């Protein structure tokens, strides 16, 4: 285990002791690594072919497209950075990015706190543990479109079950999906409901790798439960948290199907996410602008992700 950093290929050369000094090894050494040198290329080939055709090629195509005014037919004209300039000065781009930003704020911090809390509790209890784990994964396995449909019916202003419950305790009905103020929180709730279980599992796997002895040592030193959580659990969960943080940030900024099915981006444009805005360019055959929008979104998402990676690394 200690020689982990040495790759298998170099290891062969570095361990002459294993092969006693005979005349033969020289030849065998040559033929053995050759097969081993070729093997990885054979293994990655099927993947690389599909990946080149349906991921890398379209990626470069989009990059080129983003500098043209192409609308899906006829000739494409090279227009330089005009699409980018247009988007960066248009209110539509910024307001949809803002919508995604607000959704991020509504979703991700709450989700991280909730996931750590639930994972720590699940790790501490013994009874009913399996039952809770199953319950937390149920939303994750339900199809998004089905959840979106359930949300439409549940949160209907006039006939929905949620307003019926509010009415039962004497509260006035809320226009969950039809008012600009409530549409975002209602969508955020859908997202939280759908994905928190997955984050719980990721955090749980991080928790299971923490050495129990650390807690025993800490409690001998008189550290309370909260102190242990803050000084041992959270720092050691850093990798899991970073992983989930980046994953969920990507997901929130790419959010498309939820607003597409539930609110169609409305009321007005209050739930038009960055992802949905991108889709709208495509449906209007405004392909050059759509492509440019894609890359601006990638830049934003990468910047945010790298920021998290940096922030969490900085604490080392």
């Amino acid at each position, binding site marked *: 285990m200690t020689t982990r950093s040495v790759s298998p290929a170099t290891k062969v050369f570095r361990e002459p002791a294993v092969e006693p000094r005979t005349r033969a090894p020289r030849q065998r050494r040559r033929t053995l690594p050759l097969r081993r040198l070729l093997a*990885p290329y054979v293994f990655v080939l099927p993947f690389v072919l599909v990946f080149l055709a349906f991921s890398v090629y379209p990626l470069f195509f989009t990059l080129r497209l983003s500098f043209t005014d192409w609308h899906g037919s006829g000739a494409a004209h090279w227009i330089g950075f005009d699409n980018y300039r247009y988007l960066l000065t248009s209110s539509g781009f910024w307001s949809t990015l803002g919508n995604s930003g607000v959704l991020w704020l509504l979703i991700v911090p709450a989700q991280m706190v909730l996931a750590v809390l639930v994972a720590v509790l699940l790790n501490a209890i013994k009874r009913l543990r399996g039952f809770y784990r*199953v319950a937390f994964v149920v939303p994750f396995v339900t199809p998004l479109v*089905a959840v979106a449909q359930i949300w439409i019916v549940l949160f209907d202003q006039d006939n929905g079950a949620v307003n019926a419950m509010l009415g039962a305790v004497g509260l006035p009905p809320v226009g969950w999906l039809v008012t600009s103020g409530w549409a975002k929180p209602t969508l955020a709730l859908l997202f939280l409901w759908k994905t928190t279980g997955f984050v719980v599992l990721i955090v749980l796997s*991080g928790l299971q790798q923490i050495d129990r002895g650390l807690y025993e040592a800490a409690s001998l030193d008189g550290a309370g439960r909260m102190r242990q959580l803050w000084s041992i659990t959270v720092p050691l969960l850093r990798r899991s948290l970073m992983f989930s943080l980046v994953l969920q940030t990507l997901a929130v900024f790419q959010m498309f199907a939820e607003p597409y099915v539930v609110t169609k981006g409305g009321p007005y444009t209050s739930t038009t996410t960055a992802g949905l805005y991108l889709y709208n360019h495509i449906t209007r055959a405004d392909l050059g602008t759509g*492509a440019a929008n894609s890359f601006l979104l990638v830049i934003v998402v990468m910047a945010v992700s790298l920021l998290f990676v940096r922030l969490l690394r900085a604490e080392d």
Partner: protein
Amino acid sequence: MTALGVRQRKPRPLLGSHAFLLVLTVALLAPVVWAILSSFKPAGEIIRNPLGFDPATFTLANFRGMFQDVPIGSGFLNTGIVLVAKGAITMLCAPLAAYAFAKYRFAGRNLIFGTVLLTLMLPTIVLVIPLLLEMKELGWVNTYQALILPGSVDAFAIFWMRQVIAAVPDELLDAARVDGCGEFGIFWRVVVPAIRPGLAGLGVLTIMNIYNDFVWPVVAASSSRMATLQVVLSTLAQNISGNRVDADYATVTGELLAAASIALVPLLILFIVLQKHFINGILAGSVKG
């Protein structure tokens, strides 16, 4: 020590934990349970009395209406075909490539893996425009190829499997080599058995992703003949949210819930049967400390 009261206080937080977890569990299960129960209610009752359930009024009318209004049968069939073909490609290509990335050094490894990570960061929709154009070029619009091939080996599957395979000790591989095992033999006889939980996790994740996929099928398979289950479902939802003052509002609502219930049941069953593998698979694939 006991004087500090630490031992005596212990049962209390546990009780609190259970209360907290139970409340969350109810909140998580409620929408699904509510949708399934409501789909068996007369359409008018779902609207008039959304909270109650009277077993005496049990009806299959919503399901009958839904089967008449949308081609849900062909939706299931299309999803099934795509699921088998795309799932097979993913399960064959991803672990093998991930094994090469995790355990071999070769020229171009970092370049290829870097590209994989880059596409992991790309919004899925970024590739929709060029992929659609590519499909048009190939004459694949509204074909199974179009639904199956793009995304059949996505960046996430590679990334996930590499995590899993990296945890297999190198000593195990070297021991197999000493025993005269070929390079592919090592993958097949040593690595695959060692990563079974991770493979199961990938399998269930893949099935879920394909079953739930929505964005690409909406674009690539716009004809109703090729529509997958999720696309069929979304057209129902369009009826209801697009036209709020529909005279048949109650009927559409009932059919919507019937459709949602029928769509979530197969995966729920699959998950409940395979839950142990699924959860262990995710635990195996997540980041190692």
